[in-house]
């Protein structure tokens, strides 16, 4: 029997039972689309996070006190600068403040940093309007894009050039908004778009503290990161939480990798269920066509011809379902980030809403999912098809 004849036969008998064929194909479509749509999300999220991390550079080390009793001061900054291969040490202060807008107030993150180091903490930032604050200015702030115009508002919350009040534990200060950032996304520590920034000294003064919240450290090259970390640990022991961008990247990869596995396997289960659907419908089809099988055998079709005809039906269901599923899955995959940011932006604070990513559909994934769909279909069709092929022609011909 020729391959094209087998294929055509499968197609023809599927066309004969259109509704049934469509429903079985739909099962495969759902399974395939689910895998593509879900896995592409986690892959996109992973890539986006890693990209943000890498913006900081792989030679970055982040130090934070391991407990509130440990404080980081200028002494520590100097000590860290002494460590070999350390290029830069950037102390920052972060806190939460209330900022007053025209009609209401909001809680935002405030970051104190030396303006000369601003571009190192937030590499490649762009100002939408205005300028950065100055080192010695005690009242200038720069606001992130979501503080300028939160997503739930239609008009800006604050404008550049405006004077407003920030408040922390009943201490108030009047500040000038001198600049506003373009949307940026996240970095390792800071959700840039949802934060406001001011000079390190000014923030220390305002909050009345002499210690830093965290210290960024840059080594001269990524290769010496581990060595520098060892040195820091030798000095501070377990008093500091030491995070390297390298580590974070690894952690993110492993977490999202697990998430990919989890979502992928849930979606794969739905494909298996679709396979059961195929098996079910194939059994019905084999029983319905018992007589046809008998006739074909009488006319000289061999067992393997019958097997091939029935398997081709299952295979075609897999091919069509796989292709449609991949297309639909890709479409859903690109719509999903919008739906997610919309719902999350509404239900949570603006913190997460600024996180954006593009789903990634790798060609290997498409190929894998396609063949997976076909494999599931063939596997599901194998048993019924075998049963058809093994039928005794005499018994099959007698079947009413």
């Amino acid at each position, binding site marked *: 029997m020729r391959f094209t004849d087998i294929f055509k036969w499968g197609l023809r008998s599927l066309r004969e039972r259109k509704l049934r064929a469509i429903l079985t194909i739909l099962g495969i479509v759902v399974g395939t689309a689910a895998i593509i749509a879900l896995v592409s999300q986690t892959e996109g999220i992973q890539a986006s996070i890693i990209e943000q991390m890498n913006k900081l550079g792989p030679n970055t080390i982040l130090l934070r006190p391991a407990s509130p009793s440990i404080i980081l001061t200028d002494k520590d900054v100097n000590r860290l600068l002494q460590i070999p291969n350390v290029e830069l040490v950037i102390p920052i202060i972060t806190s939460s403040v209330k900022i007053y807008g025209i009609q209401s107030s909001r809680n935002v993150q405030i970051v104190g940093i030396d303006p000369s180091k601003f571009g190192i903490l937030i590499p490649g930032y762009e100002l939408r309007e205005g300028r950065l604050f100055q080192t010695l200015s005690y009242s200038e702030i720069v606001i992130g894009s979501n503080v300028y115009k939160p997503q739930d508002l239609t008009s800006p919350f604050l404008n550049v050039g405006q004077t407003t009040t920030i408040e922390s534990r009943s201490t108030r200060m009047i500040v000038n908004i001198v600049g506003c950032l373009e949307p940026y996304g996240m970095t390792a520590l800071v959700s840039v778009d949802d934060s406001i920034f001011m000079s390190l000294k000014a923030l220390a003064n305002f909050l009345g503290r002499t210690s830093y919240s965290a210290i960024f450290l840059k080594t001269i090259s990524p290769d010496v990161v581990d060595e520098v970390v060892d040195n820091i640990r030798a000095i501070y022991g377990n008093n500091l939480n030491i995070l390297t961008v390298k580590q974070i990247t690894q952690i993110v990869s492993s977490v999202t990798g697990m998430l990919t596995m989890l979502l992928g396997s849930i979606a794969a289960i739905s494909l298996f269920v679709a396979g059961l659907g195929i098996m079910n419908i194939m059994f019905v089809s084999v029983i319905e066509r018992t007589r046809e099988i008998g006739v*074909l*055998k009488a*006319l*000289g079709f061999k067992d393997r011809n019958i097997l091939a005809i029935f398997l081709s039906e299952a295979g075609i269901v897999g091919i069509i379902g796989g292709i449609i599923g991949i297309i639909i899955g890709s479409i859903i995959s690109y719509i999903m980030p919008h739906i997610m940011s919309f719902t999350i932006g509404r239900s949570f604070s603006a913190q997460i809403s600024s996180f954006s990513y593009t789903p990634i559909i790798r060609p290997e994934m498409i190929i894998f999912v396609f063949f997976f769909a076909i494999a599931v279909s063939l596997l599901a069709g194998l048993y019924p098809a075998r049963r058809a092929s093994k039928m005794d022609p005499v018994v099959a*011909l007698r079947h009413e």
Partner: protein
Amino acid sequence: MQLIENLKNEEKQWIITTIDLWKIYKSGKIEYPALRGINMKIRKGEFIAIVGPSGSGKSTLLNLLGALDRPTKGKVIIDGTDISKLKSNELAELRNKKLGFIFQTFNLIPYMSALDNVEVPMIASGIPPKERKERARKLLELVGLKGFEKNRPSELSGGQQQKVAIARALVNNPQIILADEPTGNLDSKSANEIIEILHDLNKRGVTIILVTHNLNLIKYCHRVFWLKDGLIEKEVEQNVKD
């Protein structure tokens, strides 16, 4: 020497030989013998009828003569091959190349046109589509169904469907046609037409084995085997006028 040569020649003229053919069906512990030692020889080009009441074993016998089934005991030799020794794929091959089947219920494939139905046995043997179409068209014309190529079985009368089935049975140039009650579902006019076609085929040299209980159909048969309780009760030779 001459005697052996004669014997060989005599052997050659038999297209089907059965030797002490038994078929026993088992259901649980009960054994039911459908055939109990059938010995028959059918010549090349003969028109044979097997008649008998229902339950006499005619269908069982036809299944064995048609290589659809294997005997419990005994031999069926079709064109020199003992089918009891063949594997199911070899049986299929034999059916495809040497035998043609015609059934009472036509057994056309409902989702295929008349032309496609005639093509089916050629698909099994891997003949290219162009050649298949050509042959199928010619055969439909032969059985008088020119113009009905595209019709599905449901759009044809019983007589027309049976003609499609005959065209299908002929498509691989079989040596033997096995017809199981081919007119059982037809009116007398159509039944006559079918018998005429079978007669015509027989005149062209095709061996025909007809199973029926309708005695009006056996007028063209050279020999009639009467079956009863799994045994040949009598064998009657007939003079056939063309």
